[in-house]
């Protein structure tokens, strides 16, 4: 590529399957580089925050690497940010997980345990998406399309920030967004063609050079 290193960055804080996310972007013709360097993230034109694991530990790792501030400042500058799974939950103000912990606070709201009485937790598997409002991230996604989830907690966004929901015991936030700050509770990188479409939609919001 002539444009130099890719400007879409996948934030690495030591938790989660970053390689699958990078490969999924590559599959839709978008170069995305994994980075834990605060300076690189501070210059990114798009940031993906993946993650698997526990919320408090994730915030500690983000703090230890000093990448929370650059992510927040890029978000404030209007750069698209996409949280995936735990990464989406981290965008909110706080989580009740393991006694409570502050999040990045890029979206108002909290993260609470999924209320699914009588059902197994974590919620693992494919669930139908219900589109709640139009958004660039879900362009071309049909109402009812299934996506792949692995989670025990769910975010409680402000009503206007809810883009799509899904159901497991209760109806919960599956896609959230306010302007350039976006998140999916499911794993788009494991949700086949529809998931890849969503990653392509996100990439299109950034100025990352496309290769296809």
């Amino acid at each position: 590529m002539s444009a130099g290193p890719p400007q879409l960055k996948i934030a690495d804080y030591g938790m989660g399957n970053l390689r699958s996310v990078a490969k999924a972007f590559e599959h839709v013709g978008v170069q995305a580089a994994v980075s834990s360097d605060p300076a690189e993230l501070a210059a990114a034109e798009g940031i993906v925050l993946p993650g698997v694991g526990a919320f408090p530990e994730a915030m500690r790792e983000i703090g230890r690497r000093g990448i929370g501030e650059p992510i927040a400042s890029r978000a404030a500058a209007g750069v698209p940010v996409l949280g995936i799974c735990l990464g989406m939950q981290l965008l909110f103000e706080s989580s009740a997980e393991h006694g409570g912990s502050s999040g990045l606070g890029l979206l108002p709201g909290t993260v609470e345990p999924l209320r699914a009485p009588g059902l197994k937790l974590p919620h693992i598997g494919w669930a139908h998406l219900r589109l709640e409002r139009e958004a660039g991230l879900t362009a071309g996604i049909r109402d009812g399309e299934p996506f792949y989830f692995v989670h025990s907690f769910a975010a409680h966004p402000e009503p206007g920030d809810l883009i799509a929901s899904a159901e497991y015991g209760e109806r919960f936030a599956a896609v959230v967004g306010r302007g350039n700050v976006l998140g999916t509770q499911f794993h788009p990188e494991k949700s086949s063609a529809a998931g890849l479409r969503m990653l392509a939609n996100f990439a299109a919001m950034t100025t990352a050079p496309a290769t296809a």
Partner: protein
Amino acid sequence: MPLKRLIPCLDVDAGRVVKGTNFVDIRDAGDPVELAARYDAEGADELVFLDITASHEDRDTIVQLARRTADEVFIPFTIGGGIRSVADAQAVLDAGADKVGVNSAALARPELIGELAEVFGSQCVVVAIDARRVSGPEPVWDVYVAGGRRRVEGREAVAWAIEAAERGAGEILLTSMDRDGTEDGYDLELTRAVADAVPIPVIASGGVGTLDHLAAGIVEGGADAVLAASIFHYGRHSIAAAKQAMRAAGIDVR
């Protein structure tokens, strides 16, 4: 409830699919990744790779398989066969696998299940059980290893499934050795016995010959997911037709 899952299984030996395929438009029918990508495109919900390579020297081969699969396949996939330690699991999960399957190593040292669950979370740990019906009036199943060749002393399949779940397994991949390869359908009594006994999802395996067998595994067997190999590899049935048959049986599928 999560949607019921259809899971094609690929038996892999030294990096190649063992059972042949009849897909005329597949460049290399022996390449597990090419076949896996096709199953993803056709609507498979998940994939299982079972590495049946006998030798230990081929550990790198399976990590390479996980890596190459993660490059081309964008649905969850499990790698089983030869996972004996946290380090073995770490290697394939880092390479892009979503779950690991353990069988004989967990029987030899059941603590392995808890160790894997502790490090990676239960959702990453699939305990595979190969069961064979004991002749007699009572429904009892022995546990086998080594591809069904060796019975494990003192293990009964339903009890072992319960113990595996208690130790932290996230799913049970339950294969009937009586039915495997027969195309007579799943051992529904076995599937039901385990599904009713454990609080975690059960994947029915072994014996699928027709599309009706898939629905039966869920409706009658109580399985959360159904696995099949040869009916898809040989091109006799497409994933789409299988999904359609499951839908027609009233099952909510993707």
